[in-house]
């Protein structure tokens, strides 16, 4: 094994890794480029503010889907935020409890459930009429619930980390002053963790904002602006999915526009939270 052979072998394998990196960058570049070019052509103020128009009529927009997405995310936050907060606090400050271990493992496992199955679950339990189901029918509420189930493990995890980052000496200082433990946790620990907790919430929202699979048979989709929580509701990802399957040029065009809007919204949230964490905690982007 001459040194020359070994040196060339090293170069060969490192080169192969570099090649792998380049090959993987091609689809990423292609995707982003197509998205910006095709989507950019479509986006206009009218496209963003107008509702659905029948095929053939000009001037249709995606405002109903944007509104639907925001409503769905709102419902999901209302359900997932309190539960996730409690769970995060429990995991970070309930250390001696024997249930923390199992709860943490189950949360991890829960975050791995495919989104489509969450949709089927919510359909069977809430949407379907008959059986022991609640029988709400396809509705905004059911869609929000499905999204909440995907958000919950993510948000609980980031909350736990946010609370854990507050050193125990802070707790001890509070306790030494004679404060009851619940007040120490709620007023001092949680209050100091609020920025990081909110960052986690936004990251969880960014993660579920692009989900279409859990909404297919819960929120179902709609061409109207969202109305009552018990009516079906549209959303950006689902509109994209439906339009992309249509044979009409106009709808496919709109699908690209919707895709660009969706990705831009999600990336904006992620970049802003990232920049905020960096600014606040400096250097490495904190623990987010």
């Amino acid at each position, binding site marked *: 094994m001459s040194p020359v052979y070994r040196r060339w072998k090293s170069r060969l394998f490192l080169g192969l890794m570099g090649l792998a990196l380049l090959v993987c960058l091609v689809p990423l570049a292609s995707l982003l480029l197509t998205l910006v070019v095709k989507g950019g052509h479509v986006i206009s103020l009218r496209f963003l503010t107008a509702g659905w128009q029948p095929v053939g009529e000009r001037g249709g927009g995606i405002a109903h889907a944007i509104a639907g997405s925001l409503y769905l995310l709102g419902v999901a936050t209302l359900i997932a935020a309190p539960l996730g907060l409690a769970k995060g606090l429990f995991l970070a400050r309930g250390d001696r409890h024997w249930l923390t271990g199992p709860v943490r493992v189950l949360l991890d496992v829960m975050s791995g459930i495919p989104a489509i*199955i969450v949709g089927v679950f919510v359909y069977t339990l809430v949407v379907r009429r008959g059986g022991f189901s609640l029988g709400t029918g396809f509705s905004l509420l059911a869609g929000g619930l499905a999204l909440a189930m995907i958000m919950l493990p993510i948000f609980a995890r980031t909350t736990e980390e946010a609370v854990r980052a507050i050193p125990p000496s802070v707790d001890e200082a509070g306790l030494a002053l004679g404060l009851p433990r619940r007040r120490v946790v709620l007023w001092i620990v949680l209050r100091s963790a609020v920025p990081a907790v909110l960052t986690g919430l936004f990251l969880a929202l960014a993660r579920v904002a692009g989900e279409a699979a859990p909404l297919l048979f819960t929120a179902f989709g709609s061409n109207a602006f969202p109305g009552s929580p018990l009516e079906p509701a549209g959303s950006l990802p689902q509109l994209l999915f439906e339009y992309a399957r249509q044979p009409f040029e106009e709808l496919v065009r709109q699908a690209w526009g919707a895709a660009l809007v969706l990705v831009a919204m999600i990336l904006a949230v992620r970049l802003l939270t990232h920049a905020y964490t960096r600014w606040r905690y400096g250097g490495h982007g904190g623990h987010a």
Partner: protein
Amino acid sequence: MLMTTVQLDGDQTENLSCSAGASRQAFGDRVFFAVLTGASLIAPLILLLFVAVLAYGAWPSIREFGLSFLTSSVWEPNPERERYGAFPFIVGTLISATLALALAAPAGIGIATLVNEVLPSRLRGTARFLIEILATIPSVVYGLWGVFVLAPWVSGTLQPALAKPLGFIPVFGPPYEPRNMLCAVLILAIMVLPIIVSVSLDAIRSVPASYREAALGLGATRWEMVRIAVWPPARSGFIGGCILALGRALGETMAVTMVIGNGRRISASLFAASDTVASTIANQFAEAPSDLFTAALIEMALLLFVVTLSVNVIARWLIRPAARTGARP
């Protein structure tokens, strides 16, 4: 702040004045933690409920078809002689996920190694950022790109190039369909890549620098250092990342549904339209013609749930030690 102080004073005087105050305080704490515990238990309960609800919904199908549901390829919604078998979808799911992993795993581990061991540290941030973007893009957007960019490329460029010299092998043989298994495999590979890269990167980063220094000190080349000192201790992290990616690929729905062509059959050819469990559920659930049909789809969901759950438990178990001792930045 002021309120805190006032409250604090109140509690303190309570504590000093009588022991009843202290016990009330302890009681309040107990209630508070009981509420936290209760709320925390909801998620595990939901998880148990998952199995119960899905099994209940699937019961008509389980009772009707039994084990033959897993092995039969008949998919007959005709109300007179309804029969459902999930075999082609199970096979489609396994093939697409396995092939995607076979493409993404070496690439992902290679990229993670390159980023941490070779590239200058200035570029590391950029690489992480790109991985982040890849992981952030929603499944439907990948699907849209797959339908209008990837699928035309596969059927226009890749398929003729492969079919001409290799067409005699059934894998590359006919039927040639515009949306097919290969599109699904490629798009899945792209989608699971960020998972593999980021978990592998964590594993590689938790390898102590002294291992590398020892290898280099013995005169190893950079590649030998990677083989001797970096990969072996990181191996369980690599495997965990790959299994995590496998779980994702098995359950991935939207992008696959859009590009796989919904063929509903088993074909040896990569260029034939196929189906996976998840894509079948996504496509047919909303317009299910009968209760038995719905039950069959729910049974498929149950199946996928059990499989992805086991895969994830294994992956988490493998990643755990690496994460615990891991040197976080």
